[in-house]
């Protein structure tokens, strides 16, 4: 019995481990967390999947065994107890019970017996009469349930554990140890995964997932196992016709659902059903759940705006999420890896009235250069508001660990990015700068040469530096070739001149648009200028030679299905029912006994009333004393 308690406690402690250390993460994460040495140690201890580690299973098995033996040992006499009326209990025992009383009566045996019988049955005790040579013993009993409860409870534990073990991946482990299966760690399409990592449809119990693009079908799924996965075959085809997300007015997701078609030659016609979270499809022992969703290869139409050079026109590019596209930009070849498309972006809203706002579609992709280095980008299709003004937003980061840094390209009056791009291109354009240099009267600028050619040189260099690396670039330049004492001054001058250049170029751009700038520009255009200048200053850090503007898309989603087969259910669920029933019986139907011993005397009868309960004795004593009082009242009347 100590064993039971020890096991219960051991099991709890073992379980704790699995909750403090996140289970079944990619092994690389663990390596990062613990370093190679401890990673290996913990791996050997099976801490990355505690609940299917051999030692944990061992504890469970032990619990099952000890509970079974416990039942085996206790059940028989408990069952006997249930039926046993203890009719050969001794006189002394009765007298020694704490709940016991005796009356000398001048009634007849029959009368007393009648009273006792009535009383017992009235209080719910079933009674048996036994006539001894010199006395009669009426034994009453109720609450046999607690015994039954004990058996049910503990039997339930056994059933549940066994069922659970069947559905856990103990069997997988065994087969792996026998070398029958090896998890696949490479990222391959199912049909290229070697047979050793395939599980046939004879696999009795599993739980895996698969992502099915709308309009396509699957007959396999993937079981995450250790640091890899296994491919599980299905005896039928699951087709996802359509996947839908519905939203609340507030923008939060309300439901995820998929229209499924299940093709099985055992069926006359395909089985159609819509599943959603909490509403799976159950078929032939398989359960199909709505688990997640992802992009199913949306078609993207991108406008690639060059951020360098002066004579590159924007280029239209078409690709699909999941594809890698080879493109050549400025004589260098890049790979555009479109990784995700989102139709909605529900972000915390700026205006306090509503919690969330939908900022529309976005595309996520990597730009990989020849050397294999890649930066990741997140571009929003629609201009996003930021204190009053609208911007085309593009996030960039060097690695998934980092936060996105955003480039804010101001939206022009037409709602596009033409003006910004013209502005940028003009800054890259020597002729334009030349024109400006000619116009500028900078005679009072001592440090700059009066010679037009050189001045133009300086302008081009300045603009170039700014586009390359923003103000930092210019500062670096200053520090490189200006003596300390003059730097301050020169820097200021450069910035001032840069301002002039930017301003002048901007005016040119506006003129070209046909804006009348003779009386200066309105606030909006001024704000645009500041934002545009800031953006250009940031291009150096942006790290991509082009800006991909999402111009059009065709959305394809993929539904993340989880498919499980758990025959253990058929043990576990009945077990659960037994457990509930058993526990309540055990607590609320305690076994209670009453005895009435009648012995004839010369005056009449001597009656001994006694009671006993194996649980909740306080309550029982209360009841007993009530019953005794009743006897008192009846018999002494």
């Amino acid at each position, binding site marked *: 019995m100590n064993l039971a308690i020890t096991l219960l406690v051991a099991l709890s402690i073992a379980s704790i481990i699995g909750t403090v250390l996140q289970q079944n993460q990619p092994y690389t994460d663990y390596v990062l967390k613990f370093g190679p040495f401890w990673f290996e140690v913990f791996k050997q201890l099976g801490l990355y999947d505690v609940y299917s580690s051999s030692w944990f299973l061992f504890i469970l098995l032990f619990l099952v065994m000890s509970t079974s033996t416990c039942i085996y040992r206790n059940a028989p006499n408990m069952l006997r107890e249930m039926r046993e009326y203890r009719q050969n209990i001794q006189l002394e025992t009765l007298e020694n019970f704490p709940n016991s009383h005796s009356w000398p009566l001048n009634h007849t045996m029959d009368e007393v017996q009648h009273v006792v019988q009535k009383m017992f049955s009235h209080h719910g005790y079933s009674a048996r009469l036994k006539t001894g040579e010199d006395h009669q013993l009426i034994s009453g009993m109720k609450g046999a349930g607690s015994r039954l409860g004990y058996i049910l409870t503990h039997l339930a534990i056994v059933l549940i554990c066994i069922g659970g073990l069947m559905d856990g991946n103990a069997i997988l482990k065994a087969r792996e140890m026998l070398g029958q299966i090896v998890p696949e760690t490479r990222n391959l399409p199912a049909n290229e995964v070697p047979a050793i990592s395939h599980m046939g449809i004879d696999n009795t119990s599993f739980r895996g997932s698969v992502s099915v693009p709308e309009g396509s079908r699957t007959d396999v799924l993937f079981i995450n196992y250790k640091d890899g996965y296994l491919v599980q075959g299905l005896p039928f085809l699951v087709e996802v016709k359509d996947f839908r997300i519905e939203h609340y007015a507030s923008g939060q*997701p309300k439901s995820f659902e998929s229209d499924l078609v299940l093709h099985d030659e055992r069926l006359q016609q395909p089985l159609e059903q819509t599943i959603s979270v909490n509403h799976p499809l159950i078929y032939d022992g398989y359960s199909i759940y709505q688990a997640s969703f992802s992009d199913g290869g949306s078609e993207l139409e991108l406008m690639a705006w060059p951020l360098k050079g002066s004579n590159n026109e924007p280029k239209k590019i078409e690709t699909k999420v999941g594809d890698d596209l080879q493109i050549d930009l400025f004589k260098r070849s890049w790979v555009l890896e479109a990784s995700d498309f989102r139709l909605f972006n529900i972000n915390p809203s700026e205006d306090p009235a509503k919690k969330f706002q939908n900022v529309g579609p976005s595309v996520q992709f990597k730009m990989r250069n020849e050397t294999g280095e890649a930066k990741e980008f997140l571009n929003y299709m629609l201009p996003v508001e930021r204190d009053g003004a609208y911007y085309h937003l593009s996030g960039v980061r060097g690695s998934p660990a980092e936060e996105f840094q955003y480039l804010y390209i101001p939206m022009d009056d037409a709602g596009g990015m033409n003006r910004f791009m013209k502005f940028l291109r003009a800054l890259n354009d020597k002729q334009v700068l030349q024109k400006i240099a000619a116009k500028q009267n900078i005679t009072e600028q001592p440090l700059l040469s009066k010679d037009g050619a050189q001045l133009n040189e300086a302008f081009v260099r300045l603009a170039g530096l700014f586009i390359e690396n923003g103000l930092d670039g210019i500062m670096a330049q200053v520090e490189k070739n200006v003596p300390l004492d003059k730097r301050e001054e020169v820097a200021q001058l450069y910035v001032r001149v840069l301002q002039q250049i930017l301003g002048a170029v901007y005016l040119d751009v506006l003129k070209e648009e046909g804006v009348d700038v003779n009386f200066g520009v309105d606030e909006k255009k001024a704000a645009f200028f500041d934002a545009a200048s800031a953006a250009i200053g940031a291009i150096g850090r942006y790290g991509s030679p082009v800006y991909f503007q999402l111009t059009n898309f065709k959305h394809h989603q993929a539904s993340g299905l989880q498919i*499980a087969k758990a025959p253990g259910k058929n043990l576990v669920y009945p077990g659960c029912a037994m457990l509930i029933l058993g526990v309540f019986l055990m607590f609320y139907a305690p076994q209670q006994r009453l005895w009435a011993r009648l012995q004839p005397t010369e005056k009449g009868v001597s009656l001994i009333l006694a009671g006993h309960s194996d649980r909740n004795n306080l309550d029982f004593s209360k009841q007993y004393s009530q019953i005794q009082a009743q006897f008192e009242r009846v018999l002494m009347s």
Partner: protein
Amino acid sequence: MNSTRAALQFELDKQSFWKGLSLFDWLWAIVVLLGTAYAYSSYATLMDVYEKGILISMAATLIALGWHWKAIRPLSLAVFLLSIFGISRYVNGLGDAELDFFLRFLVSSQSAIMWMSALYVLATVTYFVAFVGRSDFVGKVASAMTWSATAMGLVGLMVRWRESYLIGLDVGHIPVSNLYEVFILFSIITALLYLFYERRYQTRALGFFVLLVISAAVAFLLWYAFDRQAADIEPLVPALKSYWMKIHVPANFVGYGAFALAAMVAVAYLVRAQAEKSGANSVWLTLPSLEILDDLMYKSIALGFAFFTLATILGALWAAEAWGGYWSWDPKETWALIVWLNYAAWLHMRLTKGWRGKPMAAWAIVGLFVTLFAFLGVNMFLSGLHSYGEL
């Protein structure tokens, strides 16, 4: 000798359950049945068979409860009337909560819950005064406060339920869907369990101890509401949109409440044991006898264990529907198991090894901390599938 038979007959009749019912018992039954009939006739068309079943069994439960525990009747009536009143004050949508006097200061879910909080804290103090001052009257006041607090809490939940529908028909849901709401539920259930035993054992001495936990819960509730705006009604995430939630969560909180009660009784036990040891006749000796405390501790742990078993199993069934497996070793699940195993061990200790007294009391207190972690700590420190309120 017929006198004996007469006396016997008399006794049996007096004892007979049905004959024992008073006029008020029958009145109560009729009131409940009328209410149920009304609800049924007006909403049956909107209810599926389960909901009809639930409605009817609720009526039966309420009648039985009212028969065995009379105090439930005024409570139910008060909650009913105030809730109806509160709901009826909402005419042009949620905005009324600020405009309408009664909503603003009494029966909007926010105000009702504030009343509940205030009353529970007051009751705690009052119980203490009653205990130290050994004043029966003050004790009665404390009980009254606790009852009113409970009523206001229930009203708060009822009205909140309605408010959720005022936000949007698709948003509406039973208020047991996030940490804020279940904390209210926890306070109410713990209080009700306590009040039951207060009557059963005819002692108010434990009120102070039990109300301490409730006050702690209230403190958390207020912090959570004001610091984290947790009081806002949020639409349900898809995973929570399930019938199971409606039974799983309340069952769980009967368990939590009972465990909390047991732990506080255990505290009382240790205090009294200490007082007895030191011999001096301190005020603590007015606590119920150790035997009674031990019995009460066992009873509430048993009750908690039974309901917690039920709740965990319901949770498993729900998981089977929502996550594709009845058991996923998700941290919340696992901690529920740990709590359960812990109390199973406790029960074995007591029953099969016959342990009693201080160690068991201490264990019951530890048990509360384990439970507390399962119910709060997991959300705070561990990540998992449970979409319950992250802190």
